[in-house]
């Protein structure tokens, strides 16, 4: 827009504001189109096995991108991200499973594509996100006053405590009558299957819903990075003392980043819980899984949304691909990780995005915007 002319600065025209605002809506709509696009590949280009892998990659991307908001953008070391995912997954599972029992008398799938069941499922994912966000607030508020190692320990504790609590839950109740006759002690702690996991969830997750929630997550993360909130997050990562000296409410911004990340992880958990071929289990809340997501964000680059997406797809696909090597699998996996970190310690993309490497885009994204 304006060239690097000396002052006075040319005001931004209203017309360009309107166009920018329109773009604000167009991009999420492209996300919806993307979701339809990947969904249409299901069964044509992708066989059943590929579809599952694609869904795994999509969910992993959501978790890596959301964790990157806390670990990468804000620079706080959280190692309890799987806890938020599992909490969202269990919550969402309870909504669809017991909701279906109450509404239709069976937990089986209701309706076809975009039928009643799928909408219940979509809403349950959002509900999972909200419950996770609340947990993020509760965990975040006291612990974000802590720094570095202490914060890491508290978040680790959250995931591990959740895992143990989930093991102590009640058996899943199989019918509407069972639910009606259930005694209090069968309902509290909640009937989500204890150590064996939450069986019998309707398998609603498909590439449409993964594509939709993934693209909304990515759009949000990218827009966050280039916004007032994102700037204050990155500032905290760069220098906490300098950030409060320019008026950033450091505690509030940290908690906010924690809540946002937990919300997105919770939604991803909903998708995870309703996927073909897996049951959500207490183990999913544990630190091993959290660690996988941390590796993705580190490998992708701090604060790089597209970087963590690339890393998430590589690290999700790699074990599948290495299956042929069977017992050397973990050794190859680990060596590749070490090699990557030695060759590119700042991560694949550093703190940049993939389009920052295109000269045309870089020019457009200069001072003018």
């Amino acid at each position, binding site marked *: 827009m304006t060239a690097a002319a000396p002052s006075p600065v040319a005001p931004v025209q209203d017309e360009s504001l*309107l166009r920018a*605002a329109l773009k*604000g809506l167009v991009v999420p709509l492209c996300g919806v189109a993307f979701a339809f696009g990947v969904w249409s590949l299901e069964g044509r280009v992708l066989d059943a096995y590929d579809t599952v892998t694609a869904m795994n990659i999509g969910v992993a991307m959501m978790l890596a991108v959301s964790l990157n908001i806390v670990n990468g953008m804000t620079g706080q070391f959280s190692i309890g991200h799987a806890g938020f995912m599992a909490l969202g997954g269990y919550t969402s599972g309870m909504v669809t499973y017991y909701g279906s029992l109450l509404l239709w008398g069976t937990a089986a799938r209701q309706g076809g594509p975009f039928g009643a069941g799928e909408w219940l499922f979509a809403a349950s994912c959002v509900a999972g996100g909200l419950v996770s966000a609340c947990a993020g607030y509760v965990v975040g508020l006291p612990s974000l006053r802590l720094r570095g190692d202490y914060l890491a320990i508290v978040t680790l504790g959250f995931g591990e405590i959740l895992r143990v609590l989930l093991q102590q839950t009640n058996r899943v109740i199989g019918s509407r009558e069972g639910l009606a006759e259930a005694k209090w002690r069968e309902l509290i702690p909640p009937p989500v299957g204890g150590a064996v996991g939450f069986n019998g969830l309707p398998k609603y997750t498909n590439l449409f819903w993964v594509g939709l929630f993934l693209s909304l997550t990515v759009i949000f993360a990218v827009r*966050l990075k280039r916004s007032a909130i994102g700037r204050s997050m990155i500032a905290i990562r760069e220098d906490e003392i300098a*950030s409060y000296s320019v008026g950033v409410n450091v505690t509030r911004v940290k908690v906010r980043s924690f809540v946002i990340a937990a919300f997105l992880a919770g939604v991803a958990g909903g998708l995870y819980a309703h996927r073909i071929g897996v049951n959500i289990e207490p183990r999913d809340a544990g630190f091993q899984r959290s660690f996988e997501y941390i590796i993705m964000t580190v490998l992708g680059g701090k604060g790089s949304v597209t970087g963590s997406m690339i890393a998430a797809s590589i690290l999700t696909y790699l074990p599948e691909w290495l299956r042929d090597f069977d017992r050397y699998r973990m050794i190859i996996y680990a060596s590749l990780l070490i090699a990557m970190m030695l060759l590119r310690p700042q991560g694949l993309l550093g703190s940049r995005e993939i389009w920052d490497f295109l000269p045309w885009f870089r020019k457009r994204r200069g*001072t003018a915007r």
Partner: protein
Amino acid sequence: MTSGPARFALASPENRPLLDVQDVGIAFGGLKAVNGFSLQLPERSLYGLIGPNGAGKTTVFNLLTGVYRPDRGGIRLARHDLTGRKPHEITLAGVARTFQNIRLFGEMSVLDNVRLAAQLRRSVGALSTFFRGPRFHRCEADLRDRALELLDVMELRGDADAPARSLSYGHQRRLEIARALATRPKVLLLDEPAAGMNPQEKQSLAKLIESLPERFELSVLLIDHDMGLVMKVCRKITVLDHGEIIAVGPPDRIQNDPNVIAAYLGEPTPDA
């Protein structure tokens, strides 16, 4: 803290100073880094704070900006009591600073460093951040214009898109001032802004600092080791040594004060 309001009631509203620091002190372990420091900073003034290395100057800034909480004493800015407030609240009330050891957001662009500071009193929610409606864009455009204006003042506009860490030392110091100004302060604390600058840069910096009070309607409290600069720019100076005030007055008096000369020569003062 004990007699907060009563102490300030003595000053009549007309000639009440903009920044009123009364008898603040802080000790680190046994070391009294600042002891009984008082300062009355009038509106639109240029005030100097000098003293040998380790005298406690930076610690005074840290006390004024809430990085440290004073063990005793009170700090007031116009009608606000700033004593014991959180750093970001103090910035919001109108005290901004630069750092002796430069603290920029290195990975962020020069523009974003200033824009972040300019967004202090503008809030945009998470939902608005997602949908990017007209309000979001107007807010971002305002912040951008304001930041670019300040970069013009500091002659940094050409570097707007560069990461802050890539700037030269002198430019980084100027960026710190631009960033502090973006918070719209009433009091600007400059901690050795000329350190590491060449004579030419220092001269233009001096001119710039002198222009700040009228241009931005604020008062400047300046720490620097370059006596020439402080004597030239400031109307009044406080001298610290070992955490205590040893002299207060206009530059010509300070220059000839035997206590000050002794402190700078490293000799014990007669009454020490």
